């Protein structure tokens, strides 16, 4: 029974994909969408039924494994096609299928005017299937299958409107940048296998716990490579450049791939391997540093972006940076906590942005919006919930998870006060750009073209928004910091940390006085509040300020506007030299290798032509050759 339900989690999206792929050219978007949404929802329900008993079980018993067949066995390597549903993969499955279902439903309305709905929904289901393989796999190699699968689907979905060259290119960019990370991940798999002699997660963590490993250098290298893989999928420095461009895809795709699922798979992977990563603090330091730099870089770029989706994209990059900070200081379950809350509120924000774009007839420039709250009350109110959650308003979900990260950044033995300071700065920037986004879009004067009549979407748009908004508010309560939970009657403290205590344990922190803890919390809230107010004043009360400021700090503004020219530098430093190497290799191929082969083939051809002339159909010349041959044989006879 359990096995059947478990397989259903995977089979539903696969079946949805196959059905829609079979009706490839169908124009009936409503039917395709219903099939796809039902598949996602079926998967979600199966996961819920399987996971409910977990609540009443001991933490150590919360695991269901499923083995389909032995995938391959070569020498010492035996890889089963096996899956495992435990607290960690269970949470991921709930997030993926739950948020995924809502996004599927949203898509039905958003893509209602599209020409290829069946194809779109087929891709969407296939993405879900691969993502589930990624998180449910019980070994590294099967995870890699899902890892590549989601890469493929993101390419297909980002470039879904491929007739626009810019969008097709964004898809390719995502795919290629991810491949660089994938190469790192693959090397990491090889490294881990060479150390632990197994690809199975459970075996690896047991071996790591017994800690009989002596090759620390190799282990750090392997972990570093896995982290490079994670930077590719989770858009960290230096591989974050694909995510902002990926906004070219349909907005629900951004919500699904770039908020709730694929981009978090890097975090998931590291948390899954936390028992290994905790052995190499040096790598964790690198992760934390990369996380904090990415977070600040992306947040600062988001300050000046005009495109509503680009702001959210950079915000995602920066929030992922937070998760890496949490991982880097050894707070693995905190990273998962932020992953969950972020998945919910960022999906909400993306879908809200999608709702706005839909009603503005494809307009994405925030400077051409404004005053939308009057026309789209539901979108506005739900978006406000997301906004409050992401800027860390107390008692909203983002507040709890972000505050946990800040706290661990400060208090963890692997952390540092500077890390905390920079994270608070990042929180301030987040508050600023998100308030700017809300101000420019929903508040202030109406700046859009009068011919556009903004309107609220139908139920398929508003219902997912409302559900996500409710969760954005309350999902934080699954892991309330003990400082607050002590005063909340009847609340279980750190429910999530308990659930994950076996797979993703948090590093032991040095006990700290409550007053100090409260002070830290208060500081970050104050900074975020101040920055939000500043943004509100700048964009609503004194609309002339931004222009004045950008003139005064012209070069800084240009620097942010040009996104630090990262893409341009990549072009100069990597792409162009590679291009010229390729060009010279191609020249060598043309001038040297082709030349040799052509000469050789020409020679053979001429030789053949010569022999061809012998066969001329003239009886007498045949007789002549005959006699000639006889002469040669006789001649040879005489010579010997």
């Amino acid at each position, binding site marked *: 029974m359990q096995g059947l339900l478990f397989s259903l989690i995977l089979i539903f999206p696969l079946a949805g994909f196959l059905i829609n792929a079979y009706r490839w050219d169908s124009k009936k978007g409503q039917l395709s969408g219903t099939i796809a949404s039902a598949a996602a929802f079926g998967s979600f329900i199966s996961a819920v039924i399987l996971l409910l008993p977990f609540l009443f079980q001991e933490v150590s018993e919360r695991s269901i494994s499923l083995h389909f067949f032995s995938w391959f066995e070569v020498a010492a390597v035996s890889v089963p096609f096996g899956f495992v549903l435990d607290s960690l993969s269970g949470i991921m499955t709930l997030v993926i299928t739950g948020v995924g279902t809502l996004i599927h439903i949203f898509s039905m309305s958003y893509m209602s005017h599209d020409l290829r709905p069946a194809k779109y929904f087929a891709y969407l289901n296939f993405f879900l299937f691969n993502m589930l393989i990624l998180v449910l796999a019980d070994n590294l190699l099967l995870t890699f299958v899902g890892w590549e699968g989601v890469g493929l689907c993101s390419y297909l979905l980002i470039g879904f409107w491929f007739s626009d060259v810019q969008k097709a290119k964004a898809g390719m960019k995502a795919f290629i940048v991810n491949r660089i990370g994938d190469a790192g991940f693959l090397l990491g798999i090889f490294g881990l296998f060479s150390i632990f002699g197994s690809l199975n997660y459970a075996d690896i963590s047991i071996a790591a716990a017994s800690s009989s490993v002596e090759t620390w250098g190799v282990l750090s290298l392997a972990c570093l490579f896995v982290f490079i893989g994670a930077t590719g999928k989770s858009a960290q420095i230096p591989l974050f450049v694909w995510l902002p461009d990926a906004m070219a895809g349909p907005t629900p795709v951004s919500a699904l791939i770039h908020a709730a699922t694929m981009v978090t798979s890097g975090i998931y992977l590291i948390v899954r391997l936390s028992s290994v990563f905790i052995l190499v603090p040096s790598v964790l330091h690198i992760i934390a540093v990369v996380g904090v730099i990415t977070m600040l870089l992306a947040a600062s770029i988001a300050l000046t972006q005009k495109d509503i989706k680009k702001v959210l994209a950079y915000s995602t990059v920066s929030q992922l940076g937070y998760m890496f900070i949490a991982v880097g200081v050894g707070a693995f379950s905190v990273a998962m906590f932020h992953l969950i809350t972020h998945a919910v509120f960022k999906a909400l924000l993306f879908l809200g942005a999608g709702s706005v774009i839909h009603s503005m007839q494809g307009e994405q420039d925030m400077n051409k919006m404004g005053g939308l709250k009057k026309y789209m009350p539901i979108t506005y109110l739900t978006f406000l919930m997301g906004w409050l959650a992401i800027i860390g308003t107390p008692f909203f979900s983002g507040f709890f998870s972000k505050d946990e990260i800040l706290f661990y950044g400060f208090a963890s033995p692997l952390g540092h006060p500077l890390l905390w300071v920079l994270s608070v700065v990042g929180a301030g920037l987040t508050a600023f750009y998100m308030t700017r986004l809300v101000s420019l879009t929903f508040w202030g004067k109406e700046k859009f073209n009068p011919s556009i009549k903004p309107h609220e979407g139908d139920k398929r748009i508003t219902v997912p928004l409302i559900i996500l908004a409710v969760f954005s508010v309350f999902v934080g309560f699954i892991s309330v910091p003990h400082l607050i939970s002590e005063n909340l009657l009847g609340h279980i403290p750190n429910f999530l940390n308990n659930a994950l205590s076996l797979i993703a344990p948090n590093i032991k922190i040095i006990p700290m006085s409550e007053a100090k803890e409260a002070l830290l919390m208060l500081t970050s809230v104050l900074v975020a509040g101040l920055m939000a107010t500043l943004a509100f004043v700048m964009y609503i009360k004194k609309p002339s300020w931004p222009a004045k400021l950008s003139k005064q700090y012209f070069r800084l503004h240009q620097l942010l506007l040009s996104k630090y020219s990262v893409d341009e530098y990549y072009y100069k430093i990597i792409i162009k030299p590679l291009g010229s190497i390729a060009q010279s290799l191609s020249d060598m191929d043309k001038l040297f290798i082709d030349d040799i082969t052509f000469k050789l083939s020409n020679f053979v051809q001429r030789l053949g032509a010569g022999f061809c002339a012998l066969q001329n159909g003239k*009886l*007498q010349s045949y007789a002549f050759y005959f006699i000639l041959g006889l002469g040669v044989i006789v001649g040879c006879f005489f010579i010997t």
Partner: protein
Amino acid sequence: MSNWLMVVGLEHYLVLSILLFSIGMMGFFFHKSIIMLLVCLELMLNAVNLSFVAFSHFSNNISGQVIVFFTMSIAAAEVGVGLAISVLFFKKKKSFDISEVEKIKG
């Protein structure tokens, strides 16, 4: 010298055989008519027959003469087929020119 003229030995037969074979060969190369080619073929076969008989006689071995009978029967069969082909060829092309043969390929 006189002995060479007086007594007819193996060499004489072989020289005659070579001469006949060469005449036949040259004729085969340079004639145009198919009939003449068949005749030249016959001449070459007979030159060979002559050397077989000569060898047989001088080595007191009968098998050479047996082979001659084989050759003669095969030659008869060959001429039969050859003439039949020639007749058909003439019907088609109204000529016995061997250079026309290459045009009927394919």
